[in-house]
C-alpha cells in the first residue's frame, strides 16, 4: 500500500501531463476547425460576392444575335369576345415595335390552358421572355372590362403588372392594358388610342382620321373638293388643312370630330403646309401672295399675318416647330437642291442654317416631340431615285435610315411620345415603324398621303 503510493502519484502525474497535452491538442484542433470554417464562411460573404465569382471558372458569353423582347400572348380568358380582345392586343403590341410576338401555335396545351397563372420554367421553354395575359369580362352595367397581367421571366412567378381596365368599349379597355404593358418597358405610358389624320388620295380627296392601330376610321371633312396636308392641333381638338373648295389653295380649320370647316387664310396663291405652334395659338404656313413662296406665321383664330419668317428668293416651305417652340425646321432650295434648314422661330433673313448635307432631295421635316431627343424625321431621295424616311440627329448631325428597299415611303409624322413614325407608302396605305428597331407594321390599306399624328389620348 505504502509502496504503491509514490507509483500512484507518479502515474497520476503522468496521467495529468498526458491529459493536459491531449486537452491542449483537442482545443487546438477545435480552434483550427472552427477558425477554418469561419474563414471559409467569410470568403463568399466578401463585398458583392466578387471573391466567389473569381474563384469559379468563368465562361464569357456574347449575344448570338439581336432580337426584340420575346413576348407571348396566349388566348384571352373569358366570353366570346376574347378573340377580338386578343386581336387588338396583338396588333397594338406589334405596332409598338419593341416586341417579337411569339407564334401562339408553338404553345403547348398546358400553357394555352394555364388561365391567369404563370410558370416561368414552362414559358421559358418556348422561348418567351415575358407573357401578357387577359381576362375579358363585363361590369353589371354591361361595360367591357379587361383584367390584364404581365409576367416577366427573371422577375419571379408573380405579375409585374396586374390591373382591371374599364373602357368605353372592348377596344378601349385593351388599348389601356397595351399602354401599361409598353409603359412597363419604356418607362412612359403608351399612346394606343391616339388618332392619325390623313388626306385621301382616291376619288374623294377628303380628310379622314384613323385610330393608330388602323381601326375606327372617321370621315372629318365633306368639302367635295381636294383637301390635303392635314395638321392636328396640339390639343387634338382641331385639324388645319388646305382645300381648293373656293378655287384657291386656302387654309381651313375643322373640328377633329367633323362639322363645319372655317376658312382661316385665303391669300391669293398658296396657303399650305400648316404647322401649329406648340401652344396652339398660331400657325406657320407657306404663302405666295407676295410672288415668292415664303413661310409666315398667322393667328390660328383669325388668320391675321403676324410675321414673315423667311426672306429669300428661293422657295421656302414645309415648316415644323421644335417641341419648345424656339426653332423651326423647313425646306429650302436656296443652295440648289431642296434641303432641310433650321431657323429660330422669330425668323430673319440670315438666321437659317442648313442641316442636311447628304442626298440631293430632302423634304417634309418633322421635329420629334420629345425635348430630350432633338431629332428631325424627313423624306429623302436616295441615289437610286427612291423616296425613303430618314432621321437627322441634331446633336451629332448623323443621319439614320428608317425605311429601305420597300417601295417609296414619304411624309413621316411622329407619334406623340416620339418613339414611332407613321408615313405613307407606295405599297399602299399607312405604315408605322419603330426607328430604333426598324420593326414596321402596315396599319391601314387605304390610299392616303401626308399623315399627321394627333396627341396622346387623355386618361382619367
Amino acid at each position, binding site marked *: 500500500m505504502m509502496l504503491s503510493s509514490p507509483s*500512484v502519484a507518479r502515474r497520476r502525474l503522468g496521467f495529468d501531463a498526458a491529459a493536459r497535452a491531449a486537452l491542449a491538442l*483537442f482545443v487546438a484542433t477545435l480552434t483550427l476547425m472552427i477558425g477554418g470554417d469561419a474563414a471559409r464562411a467569410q470568403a463568399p460573404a466578401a463585398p458583392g460576392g466578387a471573391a466567389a465569382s473569381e*474563384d469559379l471558372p468563368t*465562361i*464569357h458569353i456574347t449575344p*448570338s444575335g439581336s432580337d426584340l423582347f420575346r413576348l407571348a400572348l396566349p388566348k384571352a380568358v373569358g366570353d366570346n369576345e376574347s378573340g377580338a380582345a386578343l386581336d387588338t392586343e396583338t396588333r397594338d403590341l406589334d405596332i409598338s415595335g419593341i416586341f417579337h410576338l411569339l407564334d401562339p401555335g408553338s404553345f403547348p396545351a398546358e400553357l394555352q390552358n394555364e388561365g391567369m397563372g404563370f410558370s416561368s*420554367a414552362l414559358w421559358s421553354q418556348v422561348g418567351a421572355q415575358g407573357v401578357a395575359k387577359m381576362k375579358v369580362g363585363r361590369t353589371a352595367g354591361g361595360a367591357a372590362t379587361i383584367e390584364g397581367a404581365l409576367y*416577366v421571366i427573371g422577375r419571379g412567378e408573380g405579375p409585374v403588372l396586374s390591373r382591371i381596365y374599364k373602357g368605353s368599349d372592348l377596344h378601349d379597355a385593351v388599348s389601356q392594358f397595351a399602354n401599361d404593358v409598353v409603359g412597363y418597358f419604356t418607362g412612359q405610358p403608351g399612346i394606343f388610342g391616339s388618332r392619325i389624320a390623313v388626306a385621301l388620295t382616291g376619288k374623294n380627296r377628303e380628310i379622314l382620321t384613323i385610330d393608330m392601330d388602323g381601326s375606327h376610321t372617321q370621315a372629318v371633312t365633306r368639302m367635295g373638293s381636294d383637301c390635303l396636308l392635314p395638321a392636328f392641333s396640339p390639343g387634338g381638338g382641331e385639324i388645319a388643312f388646305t382645300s381648293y373648295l373656293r378655287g384657291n389653295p386656302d387654309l381651313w380649320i375643322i373640328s377633329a370630330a367633323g362639322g363645319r370647316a372655317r376658312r382661316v387664310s385665303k391669300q391669293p396663291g398658296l396657303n399650305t403646309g400648316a404647322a401649329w405652334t406648340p401652344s396652339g395659338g398660331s400657325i406657320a404656313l407657306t404663302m405666295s401672295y407676295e410672288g415668292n413662296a415664303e413661310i409666315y406665321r398667322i393667328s390660328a383664330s383669325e388668320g391675321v399675318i403676324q410675321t414673315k419668317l423667311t426672306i429669300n428668293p428661293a422657295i421656302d416651305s414645309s415648316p415644323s416647330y421644335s417641341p419648345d417652340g424656339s426653332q423651326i425646321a423647313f425646306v429650302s432650295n436656296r443652295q440648289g437642291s431642296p434641303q432641310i434648314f433650321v431657323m429660330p422661330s422669330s425668323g430673319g433673313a440670315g438666321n437659317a442654317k442648313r442641316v442636311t448635307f447628304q442626298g440631293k432631295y430632302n423634304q417634309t421635316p418633322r421635329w420629334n416631340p420629345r425635348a430630350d431627343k432633338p431629332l428631325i424625321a424627313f423624306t429623302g*431621295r436616295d441615289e437610286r431615285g427612291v423616296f425613303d424616311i430618314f432621321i437627322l440627329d441634331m446633336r451629332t448631325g448623323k443621319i439614320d*435610315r428608317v425605311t429601305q428597299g420597300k417601295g417609296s415611303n414619304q411624309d413621316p409624322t411622329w407619334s406623340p411620345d416620339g418613339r414611332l413614325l407613321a408615313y405613307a407608302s407606295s405599297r399602299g396605305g399607312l405604315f408605322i415603324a419603330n426607328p430604333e428597331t426598324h420593326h414596321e407594321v402596315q396599319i391601314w390599306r387605304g390610299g392616303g398621303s401626308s399623315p399627321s399624328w394627333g396627341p396622346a389620348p387623355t386618361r382619367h
Partner: protein
Amino acid sequence: MPPEKKRRAPRRNFAGLLITLALHGAVLFAVRAAHSKTDEPLEIPRDFVVARLVKLGKPREKFWLPRITQPPRPTAPPKVIKLSDDPNAPKAPVEAPRPDNPQISKDLRRALDRARKLEQLIPTEPEEGQLTGSAAGTATEASAGDAYATAIFDAVRKNFTPPEGLITDAQLARLTTTVKIRVGDDGAILENKLLKSSGNSFFDDACVSAILATHKVPPPPAAARRLAARGYALEFAGKDLK
C-alpha cells in the same frame, strides 16, 4: 481503503476521456485535412476569342444618304421541311465538250495536259477542327475541360439575345452581368444565381432567361463533373469586343 479506491477510479476515467477526446479530435482533423485537399480548383478554361471580318467592297460615297447595313433579325424557321428535291424536275442540260484549238501546238497541249494532271494530284485540304467543335470556335484543338465549357457556351449563347429597342447599342457595349450556374451529372442546370448585376434590369433578365430557356446543357464528361457541380460563372457581355 475502499473509499480511497472509489476516489481514484473517476480520476483515471477522466484522463481516459481526455485521451479519447484528443484521439477523436485528431481523427476529425485528419478527415478535414483529407477533404480540404480535394477543394483545390481544377483547370480553369481560357477565354474565347471571337473575330469578325470586315466586308469587302467599294466604300459608299459620303454625299449619299445612308443605307441600312445591319444584319436581319432572326426569323422563325420555316414550318415545311424540304425532304428532297423534286424528282420530276427536268435535268440541267449537259454542256457539249468543246473541240481543242488546232492553233495550239502538240507540245504545248501535252505540257498543258501534264500540268492539269499534276494539279488534280494535289489533294484538297479539308478544314481543320474538331467534329464536336463550335461554330464560333477559333482554335483547332481544345483540352477536355475547354470542350465542355464550349458546350455550355454554345447552349446558352443560342438563347442569349438582349432585347433590341429596350437597350440602346451604346448602353449594350458597357453592360456585363455575371450569373453562377451549377450543372448536375445529367446536364440539368441546378442553380441559376445572379452574382453581379449589370445595373440594367432588362439586360439582367435577358441573361437569366437565356439560362432558363437553355434549361439543360450536355451532360458533363466524368473529368468535368466535379467542376460542373461546383459551378461556373457565366459572364454575359453586351458586345463582342471589350
